[in-house]
């Protein structure tokens, strides 16, 4: 089975801090994704990556950056955390190809105080 592991289930940080969320997948997938999930808004794509060192902006990239130095690891960075970035963050990975499902980690619930 595909395993997508997010480093923290719960995280509390302060406004202005630089925050790192880590995601690792064990299936040699080409594609990796970062979403945030908010009640009533569903999942919104922040960034995705289709290869090492490659990244593309999703629908809500402002305030975020990403890093993919190795194929199995995709990091989301909040450059200067703000309270409106309090959310559930979900990482996903998939094989290349347009009909492949995405496989999700269990999420990181991030609170910015």
């Amino acid at each position, binding site marked *: 089975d595909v395993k997508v592991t997010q480093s923290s*289930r719960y995280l509390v940080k302060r406004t202005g801090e630089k925050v790192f969320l880590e995601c690792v997948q064990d299936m040699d997938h080409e594609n990796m994704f970062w979403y945030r999930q908010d009640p009533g808004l569903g999942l919104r794509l922040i960034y995705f990556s289709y290869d090492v060192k490659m990244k*593309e902006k999703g629908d809500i990239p402002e305030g975020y950056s990403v890093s993919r130095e190795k194929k199995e690891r995709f990091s989301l960075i909040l450059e200067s955390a703000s309270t409106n970035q309090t959310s559930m963050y979900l990482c996903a990975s998939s094989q*290349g190809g347009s009909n492949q499902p995405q496989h999700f980690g269990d*999420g990181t619930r991030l609170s910015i105080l």
Partner: protein
Amino acid sequence: AQSVAQPEDQVNVAEGNPLTVKCTYSVSGNPYLFWYVQYPNRGLQFLLKYITGDNLVKGSYGFEAEFNKSQTSFHLKKPSALVSDSALYFCAVRDGHYGGATNKLIFGTGTLLAVQP
């Protein structure tokens, strides 16, 4: 622009009764459609997908979904609901018109399924 709608925020059904969770979509090309389920404090789990072929797709945990091109719908169904099916369900679409290796999906806002004993 691609979009997907889940018109019901919540669906209530008694255990043993059939259930339907609705999804409609809008794409410019042929749609690739997916259903996911999310249990509390967990990530999304893939249930089933429609890419091409038979309009009735069978998936995990006894779920199935029917693709209807004329109504642009992809409703999730199960003949007999279980209390353990209670969860948040997401429909997602990708526009097959656009090429490229990535499978960027557009997700609906989710439908909470509550199955009463």
